[in-house]
């Protein structure tokens, strides 16, 4: 019988309208490095949030057995007391505080009067040496690089007497050298008896460090693969990650791609708004014809959203260069207003944060991007506005008692329909849909697909950015693959497979 440090049994977690985890099982042996792999949204992070108490006991069903005991963590602190520490993809460090202060935040070393700073900085440095950080513990977080910040997070975990360390995409923002160092550190801690769970997309890294690999797909465990001999079959993992049946989850449509190019982008480069030396989009060229749906595939952070937003009136990035042609005319779009006037629409992936005003009515949200269409001389004709909203409500079959309803009261799928209505109302020729089906249920997804088909049937061009490969394969005429800001492949959807796309991404990672 293996010595299990952790066993998660039949974990089921539901969000309103979505089953994020469905009877997931996970067994982790003491002293091993266990990798969790799966597509975006497969449920890896949700599972870890259940484990760490971020989603408290009672909000899920199933058992967490840790060190032979059934645990009921209600907060993050409960799990940390037992030695389970999670390090998120987005680091939880405060830039303006020192390394030492960050390390003991919420866990301060107390002296007789207030905080014992000498002890804080002394202990901080001890833990920093363990992870190979040579900085002073009084250095501010903002003054060290991302790689070192990641190490500070690990040192912080060490200060909490970590027994089981969970790392969510720890190397996604690191360069190769830093990533290698981090992985070696994990191997080193393993020899000292620490157990880790690592979530990652990068199969080469996983095959380097992991003893076992569990594949998760659509909220269920697919299989656990033994990697003791460090010789995994990448194809098998990819198959496990993406292998879904393609049934009729996508509406049929006539393919009538016109020869006219709707929008073309040439040698497009974008730099990060805060770190201008960093290229987020690197010399990308692509085009979309009228009546065509073009898919953009890639992992999170591939630069697809950044590409789209930088085209859409420079709403992301600095130092943007490249050529943009819409309907054969060369265009320079300096503001979002310019982009809308030029016939462009960008339907954001973050509908709550960037797309909708949740506290306003459906009608007001729909007309926002082209309010002058329901205005005469700057005065809004509210009757006309409501009539327009009713029309789109019927057309897209948005389920709501009234168009005066606040958008915040709608379900995710219906919010997405309102967001689509808003941009269809702006009469665009080219629509960029960024993750249009994220977080909505299967039925609503199907309806969104139908709307997309209607749009191309009217001769409009649609660009669909999605992390769900089956959806791209099911809907698109052509697929571009991006990775780390570069365009790494282009293929007709008829020839594309999920394996091919994954392979293109992995291939470019190795270069």
């Amino acid at each position: 019988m293996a010595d299990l440090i952790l066993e998660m049994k039949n974990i089921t977690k539901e969000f309103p309208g979505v089953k994020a985890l469905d009877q997931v099982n996970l067994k982790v042996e003491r002293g091993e490095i266990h990798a969790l792999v799966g597509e975006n949204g497969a449920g890896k992070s949700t599972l870890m949030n259940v484990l760490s108490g971020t989603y408290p006991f009672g909000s899920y069903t199933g058992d967490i057995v840790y060190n032979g005991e059934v645990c009921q963590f209600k907060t993050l602190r409960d799990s940390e007391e037992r030695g389970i520490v999670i390090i998120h993809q987005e680091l939880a460090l405060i830039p303006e505080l020192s390394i030492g202060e960050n390390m003991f935040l919420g866990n301060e070393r107390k002296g007789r009067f207030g905080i014992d700073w000498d002890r804080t900085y002394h202990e901080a440095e001890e833990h920093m040496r363990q992870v190979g950080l040579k900085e002073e513990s009084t250095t501010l977080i903002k003054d060290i690089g991302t790689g070192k910040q990641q190490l500070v997070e690990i040192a912080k975990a060490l200060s909490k007497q970590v027994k089981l360390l969970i790392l969510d995409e720890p190397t996604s923002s690191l360069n190769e050298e830093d990533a290698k160092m981090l992985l070696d550190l994990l191997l080193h801690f393993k020899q000292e008896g620490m157990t880790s769970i690592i979530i990652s997309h990068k199969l080469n890294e996983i095959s380097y460090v992991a003893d076992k690999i569990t594949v998760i797909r659509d909220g269920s465990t697919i299989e656990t693969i033994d990697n003791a001999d460090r010789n995994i079959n990448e194809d098998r993992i990819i198959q496990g990650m993406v292998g879904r049946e393609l049934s009729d989850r996508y509406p049929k449509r006539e393919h009538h791609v016109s020869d006219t190019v709707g929008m073309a982008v040439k040698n497009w480069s974008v730099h990060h708004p805060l770190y201008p030396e960093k290229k987020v989009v690197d010399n990308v060229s692509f085009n979309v014809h009228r009546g065509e749906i073009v898919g953009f595939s890639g992992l999170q952070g591939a630069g697809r959203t950044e590409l789209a937003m930088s085209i859409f009136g420079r709403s992301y990035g600095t130092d943007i260069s490249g050529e943009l042609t819409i309907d054969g005319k060369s265009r320079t779009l300096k503001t979002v207003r310019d982009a809308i006037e030029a016939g462009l629409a960008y339907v954001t992936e973050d509908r709550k944060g960037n797309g909708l005003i949740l506290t306003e009515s459906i009608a007001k949200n729909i007309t926002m991007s082209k309010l002058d269409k329901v205005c005469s001389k700057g005065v809004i004709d509210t009757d006309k506005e409501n009539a327009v909203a009713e029309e789109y409500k019927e057309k897209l079959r948005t389920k709501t008692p009234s168009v005066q309803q606040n958008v915040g009261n709608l379900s995710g799928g219906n919010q997405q329909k309102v967001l689509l209505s808003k941009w269809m109302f702006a009469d665009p020729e080219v629509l960029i849909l960024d993750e249009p089906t994220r977080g909505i249920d299967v039925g609503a997804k199907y309806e969104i697909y139908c709307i997309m088909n209607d749009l191309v049937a009217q001769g409009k061009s649609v660009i669909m950015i999605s992390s769900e490969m089956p959806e791209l394969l099911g809907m698109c005429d052509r697929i571009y693959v991006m990775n780390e800001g570069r365009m790494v492949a282009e293929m007709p959807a008829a020839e594309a497979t999920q394996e091919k796309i994954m392979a293109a991404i992995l291939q470019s990672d190795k270069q």
Partner: protein
Amino acid sequence: MNTKTFIKKYTMVIALGVVFILFAVLTQGRLLYPQNLSNLLLQNAYVLVMACGMLLCILTGGNIDLSVGSTVCLVGAIAAQLLANTGLHPVFVILICLLLSIVIGIWQGFWIGNVHIPPFICTLAGMFLFRGLGRAILGSKTVSIANKTFLNIFASYINVPGLDDQVKWSAFIVGIVISALLIANTFRARAQKAKKGYKQSAAASEFAKIAVIDALILFYTWKLAHYKGIPVMALWVVAVCLIYAFITSKTAFGRYFYAVGGNEKATKLSGINTEKVYFMAYTSMSLLAGLSGLLMAARIGSVNGDTGNSFEMDAIGSCFIGGASAYGGSGTVPGIIVGAILLGVINQGMSIIGLDNNWQYVVKGAVLLVAVIFDVVSNKKTGKAG
């Protein structure tokens, strides 16, 4: 509409009714004397005017303008000095003052909108700057205003010879005309909706609302008729309130303020120039603060270094009591009018009773806190507050 949603929608109106009746009883009816009702409006004219401007600022995201009290002093001081020391026609003086207010507004709007200085800090700086400038211009003295034309433009009463000799019938006639127009307008709007086949709201509740409003207008103008008639200042206040009510509820320009406060990022991505929205909010605020400065100067008849002290707090308080959200994105002109009158009734009621000034502050503070707690708690349910 059931009772629960009715109470939720008209909380502050009901609160105003209750407070008004309470003070009417406590003052043994003295609150209802024509003179007191007339003064209720005059004393709160500046609050009403500035609350309209403050609403736009608050709509953009709970941002406030702390400098308006000082702007009142500065503009009032310049008006008083120009009238006292130059031979300029009062109309010119008024125009110069209003232009200057716009310049002040552009100054603040530029820093807040285009340079993204936090409004709280920028207007705090303005509060010191303009107060200091105002005092310097006054030379630390009280400057009185003797110019009759200037006083008449802001602080006289409408008086039609022949008609208004004993009872000022003109006031009541205006009341009747406005009431009739309101009813006619409701009929016209409903007919138009019916013609276009749009959805109608329930006739009963719509007419009930108009009936209540008409009754109040008739009551109030009846009382005014038995005092000195319609004060000219009321015309200024009503004009500002109407313009701002129109802007906020009917125009695209006004809609943008709500959009920015509701979700600034989404607004930006809808192609709306959010910097301009902030700029306009603070420019209009200063213009109205300048107008209030003129109204105050005319009503008091003099300006000194403390004119307009803590006026910003009354304007801000009225907005929040009147249902403007502390997070921005919601609030209406009718709402803040109710808020301002509620504050005014409390002030005046307590003054008539003879309650100590100190206690008036305590009551005002409590009312403001309760109103904002109400907003935050009800927002929590809709998920806007963390």
